[in-house]
């Protein structure tokens, strides 16, 4: 039987071992290996953020490492800078180089960033070897060691402490970042850009942020490497090292910060073992480990795509379930709109795709406190109309007003900011994240903390308020018991409710539901109807797209019926039900 504290003891024990190791009579070779693991871990932590969490990747991290190393090498040897002064400069160099490369690739589909870094990584490697200032292929030697006062970190076992302090601080910072508002946005990137954009996350910016951060940790590793080796040349910054770092991230499990350290350790120990073993087996001493590394990369992605760290985690005693910190303050709320105020006005909206008129001059209105249903048979133009309101698609003609202001030209993000929250016909949730975290993503726009605050944990009061709000919405829709479960565990009906809770976390003026009842069982539909009525009583305005007549009939205040892109009827459900045009559309025309 494990108690929550046994995990804590394990971590404490590991830290103690790490701290005492250089004092024990271990061969210096081990210390060197551990130093290399530490430096590789730093690069890999950045890659884990980028690859596993952000769904992007880079083969060029070794090149960023090189920028950090060369920055400090040049400044300390040629200009007499103190190594501590070059630390921020080296890290900044990583960011400066990453920013333009990131800017030009974040808008392209995911594989252009890695391809860009591949070509760029090679170019940079050759460049290092050509520049006189950088000592060409010979590199730069005589780099001063790190020093505090008179103590110089010359020996492997002294710089060991510097390296591992940086590793642990960086890992904690990365962990802090992941458990924050920005971190949730970055983690949401993996599920595609639509859902995060609909909750106000600037997807391109989130990608750029994570790429720049990864490059900064690589540059930090380079800075440490330069002062550990005290001599550098282009070799460790080549594309093959870049690929090796990616292998470490994949082995560790590209989604776990601590897995990065595990992956770096495993790969470097394996490399050491192979370099001793293989020459004895084959007889020559070349870099044969690349065969094993290559095969390992392929095998892990085929057999254990989440890497090996999750397997290790399973062996460890379970951690305690997360407890929500008490929130000091509630999040700001919008002023409620008086019932009956027109919220959304669709005025002769028209959308054509080539010659096809998908939405043909449709007009209707959603008033505050109402549930309005937009119904029609398949292909009636409901979803297109919905996309026009949410900014996923743009009007060909006509206009859509929200609170009297036109929505045309606004992005989904800006529309979300106005207080229009939505769900998706095909739910877009993040199955690996908990229900709580999924819902907290919906409150993204109600927080303001950025990367720096998150990393330093200065965002805690706000984060507590965000999570408290997410909890409130989860309880409001009745998913309380599932709060800490991975969202992937929920049934479809619950997933749709989760999406509603996420939308509510935005504190919306109006809720847009895209076929919320599709695929639900009868009982689930009834529960959904009860929930929507409850929301209306609490003053929420709802526009829902459906094709299930029986679901909407008893629920909505107002119905708009579309057929072939044209509004064929509008009014109270009872009137619409008796409208001959509607009957014809649903049951087929009367011959």
């Amino acid at each position, binding site marked *: 039987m494990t108690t929550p504290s046994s995990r804590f003891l394990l971590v404490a024990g590991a830290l103690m071992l790490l701290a005492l190791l250089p004092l024990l009579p271990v061969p210096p070779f081990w210390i060197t290996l551990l130093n290399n693991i530490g430096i590789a871990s730093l690069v890999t932590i950045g890659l884990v953020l980028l690859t596993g969490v952000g769904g992007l990747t880079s083969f060029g991290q070794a090149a960023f490492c090189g920028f950090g190393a060369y920055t400090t090498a040049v400044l300390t040897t040629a200009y007499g800078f103190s190594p501590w002064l070059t630390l921020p400069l080296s890290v900044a160099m990583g960011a400066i180089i990453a920013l333009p490369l990131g800017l030009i690739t974040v808008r392209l589909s*995911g594989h252009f960033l*890695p391809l860009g870094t591949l*070509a760029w990584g090679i170019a940079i490697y*050759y*460049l290092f070897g050509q520049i006189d200032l950088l000592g060409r292929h010979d590199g730069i030697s005589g780099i001063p060691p790190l020093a505090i006062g008179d103590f110089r970190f010359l020996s492997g076992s002294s710089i060991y402490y510097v390296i591992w302090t940086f590793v642990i601080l960086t890992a904690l910072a990365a962990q802090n970042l992941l458990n924050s508002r920005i971190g949730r946005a970055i983690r949401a990137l993996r599920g595609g850009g639509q859902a995060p954009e609909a909750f106000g996350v600037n997807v391109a910016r989130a990608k750029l942020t994570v790429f720049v951060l990864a490059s900064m940790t690589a540059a930090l590793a380079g800075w440490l490497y330069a002062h550990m080796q005290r001599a550098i040349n282009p070799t460790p910054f080549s594309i093959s090292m870049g690929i090796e770092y990616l292998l470490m991230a994949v082995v560790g499990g590209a989604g776990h910060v601590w897995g990065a350290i595990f992956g770096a350790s495993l790969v470097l120990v394996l490399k050491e073992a192979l370099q001793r073993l293989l020459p004895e087996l084959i007889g020559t001493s070349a870099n044969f480990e690349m065969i094993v590394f*290559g095969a390992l990369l392929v095998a892990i*992605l*085929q057999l254990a795509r989440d890497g090996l760290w999750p397997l290790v985690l399973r062996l460890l005693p379970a951690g305690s379930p997360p407890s929500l910190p008490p929130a000091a303050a509630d999040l700001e709320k919008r002023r409620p709109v008086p019932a009956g105020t027109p919220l959304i006005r669709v005025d002769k909206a028209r959308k054509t795709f080539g010659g096809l008129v998908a939405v043909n001059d449709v007009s209707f209105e959603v008033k505050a406190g109402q549930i309005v249903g937009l119904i029609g048979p398949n292909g009636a133009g409901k979803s297109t109309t919905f996309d026009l309101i949410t900014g996923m698609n743009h009007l060909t003609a006509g206009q859509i007003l929200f609170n009297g202001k036109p929505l045309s030209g606004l992005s989904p993000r800006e529309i979300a900011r106005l207080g229009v929250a939505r769900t998706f016909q095909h739910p877009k949730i993040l199955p690996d994240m908990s229900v709580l975290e999924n819902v907290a993503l919906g409150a993204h726009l109600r927080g303001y903390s950025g990367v720096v605050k998150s990393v330093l944990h200065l965002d805690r009061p706000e984060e507590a308020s965000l999570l408290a709000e997410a909890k409130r919405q989860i309880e409001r829709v009745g998913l309380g018991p599932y709060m800490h479960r991975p969202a992937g565990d929920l049934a479809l009906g619950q997933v749709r409710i989760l999406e509603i809770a996420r939308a509510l976390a935005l504190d919306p003026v109006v809720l847009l539901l895209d076929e919320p009842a599709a695929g639900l069982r009868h009982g689930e539909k009834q529960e959904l109807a009860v929930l929507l009525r409850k929301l209306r009583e609490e003053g929420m305005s709802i526009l829902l797209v459906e094709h299930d007549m029986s679901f909407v009939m008893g629920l909505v205040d107002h119905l708009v019926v579309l057929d072939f892109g044209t509004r064929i009827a509008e009014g109270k459900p009872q009137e619409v039900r008796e409208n001959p045009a509607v009957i014809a559309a649903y049951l087929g025309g009367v011959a």
Partner: protein
Amino acid sequence: MDFTIAAFLMQDGLTSGAVYALLGLALVLVFSVTRVIFIPQGEFVAYGAMTLSLLDTGRFPPTAILLMVFGAAAFLLDLWEYRGRYNAAALLRSAAINLALPGAIYALALVLAPLQAGPLVKALLTVLIIAPMGMYVYRIAFRPLADVPVLVLLIVSVGLHLAMMGLGLVFFGAEGLRAQPLSNGVYMLGFLPVTAQSLWIYGITIAIIVGLYVFFEHTLLGKALRATAINRLGARLVGVRTQLTGVTAFVLAATIGAVSGILIGPITTIYYDTGFIIGLKGFVAAIIGGLASFPVTAVAAIGVGIIEAFTSFYASAYKEIIVFSLIIPVLIWLSITTAVHEDD
């Protein structure tokens, strides 16, 4: 600029550009059909060139052993897949494709290698040894990952590149090899000498482009490949076996890689890791073509070759830097002209 030098450099650029064009086309082909960004394409080039140079000196090419290794690995994976479901026909078929075929090629190489046959025979044998590797590589690395994101396929691709490059080192060693040209001789085009090898390069490149065109336009399999490229699910629904189109794409890529190796092997010394850099130049071209357009890729490849030729004359130390940095303006241009991609 001296006109004579310019003419020489143009010819040089055209020659290597033609080879890059072949590689770029293979990359676009594989990507559009299977979504795999095929980094190891360059390894086939190195394998091809080094196999040919060993055959030139009457030595036995170790790639034939490598082919058997790949085949055996594919067979073992098939066995594992069939476990528990005894199916004699499928097993026999797998043994024929994965064991008998490489065995037969190995035997042929064993017989032909010491005979010092003519250059065309050696070239054909080289292609025969390399081409089936495409099939095994697909079976081993990519077939088990049919529906994963492009990014995962890309990382697998890089892993495969690493393994294949390492195998190249084991089998060929670290020394460079240079093959004999398909035919010797120099023709004078005015003042400009044109080697017979460059004529071979132009001719074969054009022949392969025409061949691909005919294949895609006029054969059922070619049309199936195009259908898969346009819409995988749709193609599957109308009965196209996407595994078959996948295998075909990889075999074509390996064939084109081997041919490129045969063409470039006599012009430049090939080391076990040269293929990677050559393949990546095809990549620069393929990316300019947005990994989608065959004609743009071919034209871009010629451009890459010419730029490379001129930079190697005027700033030879910066040759690779300039060629690989070409990708930056291309990405900027793509970023400006492409609509935002939502999902892969």
